[in-house]
């Protein structure tokens, strides 16, 4: 585990954090703008916060929101910059170049790179420094949708192949659900929830994880195909998803948004909805005057459903009730 303990007072903003994150995988730091996400990263790097060793002796790689490569050097020069100053060799240079597919870009001037290419070079440069911890400050936020989609598979690869822990700051719940293993939720400079991604996302009492941010992630394995659909087995049941995903026993992440889940007392006999899961109401949390978040359990898995307080009253929903969950849509990632 890595201990993060930082305190900064900027007058109108106070960051006060004391938490632990795993020393493997990707830890997401999720929060709205102004919640202190970037300040936390800058404190870890030593760019803010005062005490501790100077930045260059902290062995952290930092990926900024804007790539800002060194324009007096070509791509190779930019990668060598960190490599020459590395104090350990836990990251293999050729592996980084392969992973981010930079082989053909090495001799290019940095001004000729697209936004996505530049960000890939910036990530590689940070890795070449052979850091103990990689900090990423919304590395996709400066890119448009198309470039983002181009870049995301590289992050999937980093997630699978990189042995260095990553702290990934984002305000995009979809990015976090796709990439992270552990999640820290920040609000007004303080940690309001943290734990494994699956646990934190299935909580109903975190205000920031309500509305369109509410939703769970399930690990599921594609096992069968029919009518152009793929059947995923999540251990405690099946979920059908449009599209042909290779049934090669590699588990994938399914994100099920709470707004896409509805609750019914009786099993709907005639419905166009593909997925109806028998489940139990575990927890009902009033979000505001109109809405409530309901946590349902299916076997050992949790689902969230966002419903109105009116429906909760009309169905007389209570904890422990046996109900049916209808899933309107499911996103497959990875």
């Amino acid at each position, binding site marked *: 585990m890595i201990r993060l303990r930082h305190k900064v007072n900027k007058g109108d903003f106070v960051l006060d954090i004391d938490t632990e994150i795993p020393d493997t995988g990707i830890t997401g730091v999720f929060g709205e703008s102004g919640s202190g996400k970037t300040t936390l990263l800058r404190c870890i790097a030593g760019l803010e916060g005062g005490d501790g060793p100077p930045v260059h002796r902290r062995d952290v790689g930092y990926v900024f929101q804007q790539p800002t490569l060194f324009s*007096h050097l070509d791509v190779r020069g930019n990668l060598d*910059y960190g490599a020459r100053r590395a104090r350990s060799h836990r990251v293999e240079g050729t592996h980084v170049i392969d992973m981010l597919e930079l082989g053909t870009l090495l001799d290019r001037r940095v001004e000729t790179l697209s936004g996505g290419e530049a960000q890939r070079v910036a990530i590689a440069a940070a890795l070449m420094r052979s850091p103990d911890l990689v900090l990423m400050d919304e590395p996709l936020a400066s890119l448009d949708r198309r470039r983002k989609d181009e870049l995301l598979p590289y992050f999937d690869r980093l997630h699978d192949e990189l042995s260095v822990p990553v702290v990934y700051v984002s305000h995009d719940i979809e990015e976090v659900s796709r990439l992270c293993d552990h999640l820290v939720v920040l609000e007004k400079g303080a940690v309001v929830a943290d734990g494994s991604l699956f646990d934190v996302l299935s909580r109903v009492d975190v205000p920031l994880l309500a509305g369109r941010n509410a939703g769970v992630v399930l690990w599921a394995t594609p096992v069968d195909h029919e009518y152009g659909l793929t059947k995923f087995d999540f251990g405690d049941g099946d979920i059908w998803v449009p599209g042909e995903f290779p049934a090669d026993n590699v588990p994938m992440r399914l994100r099920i948004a709470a707004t896409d889940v509805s609750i019914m007392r009786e099993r709907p006999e005639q419905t166009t909805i593909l997925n109806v899961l028998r489940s139990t109401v575990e927890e009902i949390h009033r979000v505001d005057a109109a809405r409530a978040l309901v946590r349902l359990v299916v076997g050992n898995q949790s689902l969230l459903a966002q419903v109105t307080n009116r429906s909760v009253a009309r169905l007389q929903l209570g904890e422990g009730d046996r109900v049916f969950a209808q899933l309107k849509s499911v996103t497959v990632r990875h």
Partner: protein
Amino acid sequence: MSLYGPLWLSAQLAAVTTVILILLGTPLSWWLARTSTRWKPLVQAIVDMPIVLPPTVLGFYLLILLGPRGAIGSWWVSLTDSALTFSFAGLVIASCVYSLPFAVQPMQNAFEDLPERVLERAWTLGASKLDAFFSVAVPLSMRGFVSAAVLSFAHTLGEFGVVLMVGGNIPGETRVVSIAIYDHVESLDYAAAHRLSLLLLVFAFAVLFAMFALNQRWSRR
């Protein structure tokens, strides 16, 4: 020799002054570009004063300061047994003061244009502050350095008033090209004045043209 001697002396003076100004001006302009102290306007005003002061005023104060009884002059006399005024060394000091803003301004502008994030990136890539300065800030501010060197050199080459006050007109020691031209005109030797003046004119044009052409190419990159 007598015709082109002053030209050679001017070139030497300008070269020495430029080297000193780049060396001293770099830390000064770095500090001016990045400081937020309330003393900055004061320092900035002092540095830039030679731009607006008449050269004779500057020359007058330098003459007093560098003279055998002045603060710097007397110390120099006790150190070297010779006077600073009316010497090449005195001219170098005077030129450095006179051309300082022409070295500092372009470098300061270049440093101010450098985004803080670029330096922060260098630090997170393992560079100490000094390392990042030389490996990132200096190469990315090359335009500012070139402008500073060109302007310091050309400006020193063209100075007249300060030189006349502090250096006088000693052949081979302080008789720089601008003084020599003035002399030639005084003695109605227009042919000699023409030859030197035309050389300076062409040089000044060529240097500025080259600088702006280079700037354009750099900004297009």
